[in-house]
């Protein structure tokens, strides 16, 4: 049972298409695991549809329809798709078929598998600190996304954030600030939060972490480590 959800305005921004790729990945991951938020997101997409329909109509070029039908016929006669990102119809993020785990055994939602190159077993881990590994997935300047793997019972350094940090649990659990986070749960931390997540002792903890500004580590080891780990 998921008990920690993204704020409504974040779901609205995802529906509007104004989030960066890393934060959108976090939203797609949570929405795969959370039907309640999918319903909220559907309402916001419907809102987008209504706003576009209420939008004053522009004037098109006189031959617009003919040009579009021409484009359609050209594509129909064997010209490849233009390579544009797909529509909102769920075919964009399909990973290579060989890397898709069979139903029942998958751990990572498909939008995430696209970046990892397969399910969790395909992750290429790099050491990040005692008991902690990571795999960077997206780093586009604005925001970055990574998988984190924390050994049972280990903790991430105490840190605060200059921007926002979104963490989604994929396997195991962690606790921070007196709260417990399990599969699908999403924690949002901003500049006002300083925390020290501790993985549950029952299993390794795997999370998707998205940050839109560098973390600030509070303790000495963290400050020493920061230049090396680059997060």
């Amino acid at each position: 049972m998921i008990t920690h959800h993204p704020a409504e305005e974040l779901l609205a921004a995802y529906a509007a298409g104004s989030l960066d790729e890393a934060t959108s990945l976090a939203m797609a991951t949570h929405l795969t695991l959370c039907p309640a938020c999918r319903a909220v997101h559907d309402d916001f997409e419907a809102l987008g549809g209504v706003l576009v329909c209420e939008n004053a109509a522009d004037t098109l070029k006189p031959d617009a329809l003919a040009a579009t039908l021409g484009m359609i016929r050209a594509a129909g006669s064997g010209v490849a798709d233009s390579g544009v990102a797909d529509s909102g119809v769920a075919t964009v993020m399909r990973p290579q078929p060989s890397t898709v785990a069979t139903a029942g055994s998958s751990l990572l939602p498909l939008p995430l598998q696209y970046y990892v190159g397969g399910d969790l077993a395909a992750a290429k881990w790099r050491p990040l600190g005692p008991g902690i590994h990571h795999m960077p997935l997206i780093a586009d300047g604005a925001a970055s996304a990574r998988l984190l793997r924390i050994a049972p019972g280990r903790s991430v350094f105490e840190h605060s954030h200059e921007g926002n940090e979104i963490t989604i649990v994929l396997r195991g659990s962690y606790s921070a600030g007196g709260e417990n986070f399990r599969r699908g749960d999403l924690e949002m931390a901003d500049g006002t939060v300083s925390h020290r997540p501790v993985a549950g002792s029952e299993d390794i903890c795997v999370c998707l972490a998205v940050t839109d500004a560098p973390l600030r580590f509070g303790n000495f080891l963290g400050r020493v480590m920061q230049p090396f780990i680059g997060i």
Partner: protein
Amino acid sequence: PPRSQDPERMTTLLLRLKENQDETVFAELFHFFAPRVKSYMRKLGAPEDQAEELAQESMAMVWRKIHLFDAERAGASTWIFSIARNLRIDAFRRQRRPEVLMNDPTLVPDGPESPEREMDRGQQAAAVRAALATLPAEQARIVHLSFFEDKPHAVIAEQLGIPLGTVKSRMRLAFQRFRKALGEPES
């Protein structure tokens, strides 16, 4: 023409196009949606030519992807909006928009929907329009800006001449109020 504004009619047209790729049906959809998608692109900063191009591409995509249109999941305006939005993200930012995939083995399925929710599935656009109309002007403005301005909240705040914190809290209030007007439980 008033009948083109009827979202149910647009959904019916898409279903007809799905059944049989008919250029007359497509033309009616095109005449309603293409000028609005063009305006959407222009408001988000596309120059005239690019806005026209993206509107045409969006409609070509409607034709190409029509087999995926599922009226149970989204009405016509919602579906076409999602197509236009994704083309915009690709064209403006050269980025992908990771999306939920309905064939994902890890997808946690919907619980049994409340009867209320099932009822407004078919008339979602009408319900959304009614909910939008209940928002006070300043909240409606913020909702509008959040779909038609590809700008960080800080820039929106500057444009409106109000503090960032106020933009964020107004946005939150506006979206919560919108959802309440739709009759959804608070999340």
